[in-house]
């Protein structure tokens, strides 16, 4: 398993280099101009100089190599310096700079990441924790009233888009009942119990909207996987051994049913980091999804490129994690 993991990690390097090239080439096709948002009073020749100073008049392979150097050498070195307080070299390195804000992209991402992880991450965890028991019980009592109700609710959760459900919960809980705020305050800092309660309150609505979607998806998977296994012969064997239903279902069936579900859950984690673009917009959560959509609209190529590439890294990484988990859960799968 260890050699498999190491081998896969090495194989990820060419994969990611290739992905970065594709992202670079596609974004290069975008007709955006880093000077477009500058005041109109700047004369064209100055604009050309600004572009030249950003290295944009270089041929494409030089620009790609420069980006590689910035992202894979300069940024990591900078991170190490920040974390350890050491100084490596002369410290004069070109970082990946956002065209919109003129600050390093990685710093902006580091600022935005906590909001996304708080809201989307919590929703993901909550969604899974609700989905698994629902899926298990729906399958165990297939076609019961609980199962039918669960099917109906998950259908709703699947089919209602967050720009509708988000506005709906705002109207109900923020406007009519006034229980929770409709806008997520990014500047809120948790220092004591009271501020923690405020944080919880402002998280509830976006988490609710996202968790509905996640619960719908995962509980369907869980139910289907449980149903696949409940009719297997080994379940009859377990019952014939005189085991209680809880052991039969929660040990024998569940362990088998979790194999595909864990994969789905692991593959969904990169989406957590990717943020929930629409939900973040509805609740004004200043997260990564918000950042990405703003960068796309502003033609901020370095930000879009960096974010997209980080998502690619996460997807590759969690694919590997899913494969490793698969091997741990299913003894029939051995990678060595």
């Amino acid at each position, binding site marked *: 398993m260890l050699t498999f993991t190491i081998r896969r990690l090495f194989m990820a390097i060419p994969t990611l280099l290739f992905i970065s090239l594709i992202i670079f080439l596609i974004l290069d096709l975008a007709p955006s101009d880093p000077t477009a948002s500058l005041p109109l009073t700047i004369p064209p020749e100055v604009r050309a100089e600004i572009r030249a100073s950003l290295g944009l008049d270089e041929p494409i392979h030089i620009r790609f190599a420069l980006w590689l150097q910035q992202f894979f050498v300069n940024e990591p070195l900078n991170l190490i310096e920040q974390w350890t307080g050491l100084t490596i070299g002369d410290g004069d390195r070109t970082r990946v700079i956002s065209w919109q804000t003129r600050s390093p992209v990685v710093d902006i991402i580091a600022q935005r990441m906590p909001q996304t992880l708080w809201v989307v991450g919590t929703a993901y965890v909550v969604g899974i924790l609700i989905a698994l028991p629902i899926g298990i019980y729906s399958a165990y009592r297939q076609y019961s009233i609980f199962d039918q109700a669960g099917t109906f609710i998950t259908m709703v959760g699947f089919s209602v888009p967050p720009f509708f459900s988000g506005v709906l919960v705002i109207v109900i809980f923020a406007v009519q009942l006034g229980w929770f705020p409709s806008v997520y305050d990014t500047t809120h800092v948790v220092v004591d119990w009271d501020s923690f309660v405020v944080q919880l309150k402002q998280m509830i609505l976006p988490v609710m909207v996202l968790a509905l979607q996640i619960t719908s998806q995962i509980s369907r998977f869980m139910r289907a996987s449980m149903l696949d296994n409940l009719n297997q012969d080994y379940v*009859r064997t*377990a*019952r*014939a*051994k005189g*085991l209680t239903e809880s052991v039969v279902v929660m040990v024998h069936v569940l*362990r088998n049913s979790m194999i595909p579900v864990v994969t789905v859950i692991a593959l969904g984690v990169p989406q957590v980091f990717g943020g929930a673009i629409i939900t973040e917009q509805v609740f004004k959560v200043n997260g990564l999804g918000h950042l990405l959509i703003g960068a796309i609209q502003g033609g901020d190529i370095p930000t879009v490129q960096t974010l997209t590439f980080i998502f690619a890294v996460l997807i590759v990484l969690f694919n590997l994690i899913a494969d490793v988990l698969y091997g741990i*859960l299913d*003894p029939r799968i051995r990678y060595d």
Partner: protein
Amino acid sequence: MLDGAQPSVLDVKDLKTVFKTRRGEVHAVNNVSFHLKAGELLGVVGESGSGKSVTMMSLIGLVPAPPAVVSGEGVYFEGQNLLTATDDELRAVRGARIGFVFQDPMTSLNPVFNVGFQLMEPLRKHMGMSKAKARVRAKELLELVGIPDAERRLKDYPHQFSGGMRQRVMIAIALACDPKVLIADEPTTALDVTIQAQILELMKDLRDKLGMAVVWITHDLGVIAGIADRVLVMYGGQVVEHAPVRELFANPKHPYTRALLETVPHVRGERAERLEVIEGQPPILRAHPTACPFRDRCDKAFDRCARENPSRYPVGPVHDVACFWDPETGGARDV
């Protein structure tokens, strides 16, 4: 019942199982009665769909209910009526005093747990053994069923065993708590012939060694001839003939039994013979049978067979048959 000399370890009286589904009822087991004496090997034969397995699953609460509804006069096991027992009481019997071996060893073991875990489960549940004690016993059990290198094999997963070895593991699980009765549901059907013979030998050995009673469900008359003491022939969810094994083969009374015996191909003799078959399909009983379920495929059937369902008439000391036709006279039975 017919011979009351020895007490029965298992006594099934008038067992009925009905599956109530959305698309109607299926009467899978209809008034089945039989008994099983300590140390005896009872063969149960019949085609697929004759209700053999469902009968055995029903008496210990292994059919899914709903849709199944199990009723009857009683299933007496060591003085306890299993039909009126609670789920907890049934669980205390299953896997402890009644063991099961199922047909397909490829799918009957849980693929994600090692065989040691699966073997230790009943030991820890029913015998209250500690993990260490259960491990020692599990190793003994694997040795008992003839798995070499038992200590190491406990850590192996089912997919690391061959089909025959997996069936041995299944048998070890069934035997874990020294059951009084072992129900073996076509345990050799999924295995190839040489492995079948090994498993048969093993079962005979174990029966002699451990002295448990065995119910052996099969559709293979050759297996029955080699292993059983008494035989139940089932058709349409009911027992159509019951006799000691020699008697059954020498002197079959029911037209279905006779037809079954004729379908066994002969190795000796003329080769040009076509294989004998029983034409038609066993019935799916949508209602409780009020006529003989075999009449449509029976060449001896007459008008009474369509009006009445025959009960089991004694024709010998331990021999009874559910048929209106009498092979002795070649005419209707005087009942």
